Each structure stands twice: as C-alpha cells, then as structure tokens.
C-alpha cells in the first residue's frame, strides 16, 4: 500500500484537475464521436466504483466484495421506481439511498468478521439478492418469457450528452469525497484501522463507527454510479445488476492502478476501460487477457502503477514545471 505522498505540491497543481474537468465537460459540445462519449461514460462509472472500492480496500482495510449488491439494488430501485411514477432522477438518489440502507443493515453481521472472512461474508450477499430478484416482481405483469427484468421508463428525453455529464459529475464527486476524507479526521482514523485494528481501538478509535462511515459512503456512491449506468442502458435483470463484473472491474482497476493511492483507481479505471475497448471483439478471451495483465501487475508492481510512478519519481517533472510557473507568476505580481 502506498503512503500518502508528502511531496510538496505547488498551489497551481490544484488547477490541473479543475482544467481537466472543464475540458472533459466540453467534450459533448465540441462534437466528438459518440463512440468516444460511450467509452468515457463507462470510464466515469468504473472510476467512481474503483475510487470507492479503494476507499474501503486501500484506506480502511476492508476487502469488500459486494459492489454488485449496491449496483443491482440501486438499479432495481430506480427501475421499479419509474414503474410507479417516480422520475428517474429521483430514482437515482432513491437507489443510492437503498444501497446505503442495505449496507447499514448488513454492517453489524459483516463487521463481526475480519480479513478474509469479511471478504467471503460480503461475497455471498449479491448472490442471495440475485436469487431474490429472480422471482420477486413487485410491480408490472410477468415479464415475457419469464425472468424478472425491468425497463427503466421515461429516460428517452435524456440525451447521451446528459448521461455523459451525469457520469462525469459522479466520478468527480467520488474523487473529491475521498480527497476530503483523507485530509480530515475520518481519513486519519480509517488509515489507522487499516494498519492495525487493535492498536486503533486502544488509541480510542471507535472501529465500528468509522468502518460504517466509509462503508455507507462507498455504498451510496457505488449505488448512484450503478443507477446512472442503468439510465444509459435502461434495462436491468438479476444477471446484469448483480453481475460479478461489477466487483471485478473496480477491483482490477484499483489493484492495477495502485491500492491506497488517490490516483491509482483513476489510472486503473482508464486501463480497464481501454482494455474493454481493445478487446471488445474477443469475448471470453478479453477476461483471460485482463487476468494475465492483473497477475503481471501484482507480481511486478506490488503497489500498482501509481506506486511505480512514485518510485521512479514520475511526478517530479510536471510538479517542477508547475512550481517554476508559480514562481514566475508571483514575480510578475510583485
């Protein structure tokens, strides 16, 4: 795991994410290919999921294996909501709230388990939900040909540009939330729990409350990201909503990018999305190749790509440039 970098960052560096955000927000307006918007949409969703997975695995020490429970529940909540007259925009929030509520309900039993037992305990939950949603059909008549799929109603007026901006906002918010947490009291406590739970408790940290805080935040944002995905692909089924790929994508992105670093999930999500684009035509081979990449990264770069970049000092040059630019600006003001 990578320790928070203590490199002195020039103030100008805070402008960089803002500029990137503005640039990305302009994309739908300048008429870039729709295909690109689609891939960027996926990137933003994976990015939000990976950033939240990293908050739990990289900063809280919780190897949480049930993102698909949050994605599926939020997607279903929104889809079913639109059938009973709830606008999908409200459904987005309602879905995230249901995901967080589910996290709250399961927190007591799963937090009693530690390490690998916690991981396994969370892994079985989406399977149970998948089975439940396969026969539970609260509204609407039986689906043609069986199954329990729902279409998300009323999203036709929502353009690809709108969806793109929504996903971008969710991704940006997830990064911002983690950035704030890490610099606040909460982040200090979470990293203490990650490093040593017993010591944290004897130093006065309320383990349950802090784990629950990060768990709820992750569930809510993962839920909202999942629901946003089902606005873009407005049909949800138990096998898609509770699909294990919702776990594998953020997990791979975080591990490849660098667990326990803020930029890790961003780098990782970009790679995972790019691989999906490259390997789109190869079906099952795509998973195989992604698996090999994962193994190679884990063996050769134990702290992911972000760890490697820090080790070789890759940030020194761009940060140095910003520092020089900052110095010149100050001089001119004087």
């Amino acid at each position: 795991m990578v320790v928070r970098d203590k490199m002195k960052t020039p103030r100008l560096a805070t402008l960089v994410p803002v500029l990137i955000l503005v640039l990305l927000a302009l994309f739908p307006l300048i008429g870039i290919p729709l295909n690109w918007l689609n891939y960027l949409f996926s990137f933003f969703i994976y990015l939000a999921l990976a950033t939240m997975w990293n908050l739990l695995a990289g900063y809280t020490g919780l190897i949480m294996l049930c993102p698909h429970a949050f994605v599926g529940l939020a997607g279903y909540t929104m889809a079913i909501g639109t059938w009973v007259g709830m606008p999908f925009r409200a459904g987005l929030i309602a879905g995230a709230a249901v995901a967080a509520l589910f996290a709250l309900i399961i927190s007591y039993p799963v937090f009693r388990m530690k390490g690998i037992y916690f991981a396994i305990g969370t892994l079985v939950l989406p399977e149970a939900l998948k089975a439940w949603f396969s026969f539970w059909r609260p509204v609407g008549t039986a689906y043609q040909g069986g199954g329990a799929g729902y279409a998300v109603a009323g999203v036709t007026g929502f353009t690809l540009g709108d969806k793109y901006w929504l996903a971008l906002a969710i991704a940006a918010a997830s990064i911002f939330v983690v950035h704030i947490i890490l610099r606040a009291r909460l982040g200090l406590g979470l990293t203490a729990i990650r490093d040593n739970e017993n010591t944290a408790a004897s130093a006065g940290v309320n383990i349950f409350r802090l784990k629950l805080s990060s768990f709820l935040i992750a569930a809510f944002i993962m839920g909202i990201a999942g629901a946003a995905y089902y606005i873009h692909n407005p049909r949800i089924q138990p096998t898609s909503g509770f699909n294990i790929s919702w776990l594998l994508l953020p997990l791979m992105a975080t591990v490849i990018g660098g667990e326990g670093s803020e930029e890790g999930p961003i780098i990782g999500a970009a790679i995972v999305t790019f691989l999906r684009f490259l390997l789109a035509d190869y079906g099952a081979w795509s998973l195989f190749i992604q698996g090999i990449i994962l193994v190679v990264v884990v063996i050769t770069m134990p702290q992911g790509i972000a760890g490697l970049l820090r080790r070789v000092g890759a940030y020194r040059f761009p940060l140095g440039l910003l520092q020089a630019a900052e110095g010149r600006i100050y001089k001119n003001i004087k």
Partner: protein
Amino acid sequence: MSETAVLSVNRLNKHFGGIVAVKDMTFEVQAGEVLGLMGPNGAGKTTLLNLIAGVYPPDSGRVLFQGKDITRRAPHKICHLGIARTYQIPQPFTHLLVRDNLRVAATYGSKEGNMSKLDEILDLVDLSKQKAVPAGDLATVSLKRLELARALATNPTLILLDEVAAGSTDAELPRILDIIRQLRKMGKTIILVEHVMKVMVEAVDRIVVMDKGEKIAEGTPGEVMKDDKVIAAYFG
C-alpha cells in the same frame, strides 16, 4: 476499595479453553503510584492487562477505574476514560508517519485533542528526529518508544506498560528509567510489566507477583524478592 485507588481489580478470572490464564486476581493501584507486575513467562500478566484494557471480557470479576465499573467496556471507551496501554510486541500504524501515529491517538483518544503536546511527547521518547518517517521503518527499540508515545498522546491517567525495556541494551536502561521517572512527575499512574529486574527494582513502588494466573505475593521490591513463594516460582 480505598478512597485513593485509581484502579481496583476485583476477583478477576479468565480462562482460554482448559487453560486458566487469570485466577481470582485482586489488587489496587493508588493515584500516582508505579505498580510492578511480575511473574514467569505465561503467568498471565499480559492477559491481565488485556482484561483491564477491554480487549476481551473476563469470565467473572470486576474492574473499577476511578470508582467506575469498566468491566466489559469496549477498548476505545476505556481509552476515552483515561487508560492507555502499550503492546509487548510493538503494534504501530506501519504506513503512517511517526507523528501521524500520535495524531491518531491525540485526535481520537484524548478529549481535548492535545495536539500541542505531541512535540513534547516526541522529545520525551527521543523520536523527534524521526517524526516524519513511516513507523514501519523504525528499529525495534524506537518502536517500543513509539508505543509509549502513542499511549501518552491519549493523555491518560493510568498507563499500562507491557515490557517497555525488554530488548534494550544495558546502556539504554538508564534512559528508560528516566522516562518512567518523568511520567511519574507528570502525575501518571503506571502499571509496569517487566522482566528486566533493574527496571523493576528502581522504578516501582510496589510489586504484585503472579504465577499460573494467581497472585502469589505483593509488597515493596525488597519484601517481594525475599518471599519464598516468589523464589520458588522463579527457581522451582
């Protein structure tokens, strides 16, 4: 229980499976006192500290801290009340800087968030120069000091020290004795588990000796060392 007792342990029992770890332990620690806890390996000293710190609940018996029953309370609540502990095998927050290790304890463990005292504490345990180093990079002796510093950062009334001197060279012992003296000057009450005799004899007011989970002797260092049961426990 007497009026001035900070901690009062009352007929405490704990067993793990068929092994009796602590049996009918009863003792008191007075305000400002340094109480030594000794006994052969496996006598139950660390278990006793764990029972006081709330790591696990006793099978029976009570622990009173400043007159308040703290038996079965969660470790973080016991810390908030004013009991801090160190671990025999150092348990730092490995990836956090030395200073951040203390910040955790000061932020979450002390009511007033005594951040301003952290530099003093680092000075006291000779870790000032290493405050910006990840705790995982420290040597064992420094890690033992970090344990002590983290305990102090919670601004405790009572400190449970589990073998802070173990592993130190003879040359380092005077410094440890000096630190314990400083703690006493700060008005801290201390329970000291220690195998290093020199520390025991020079630092403590009173000693409780345990063997096989039971208290076999109690008194000043001089009294205890002459006790037949103690000699039998150590030399068979």
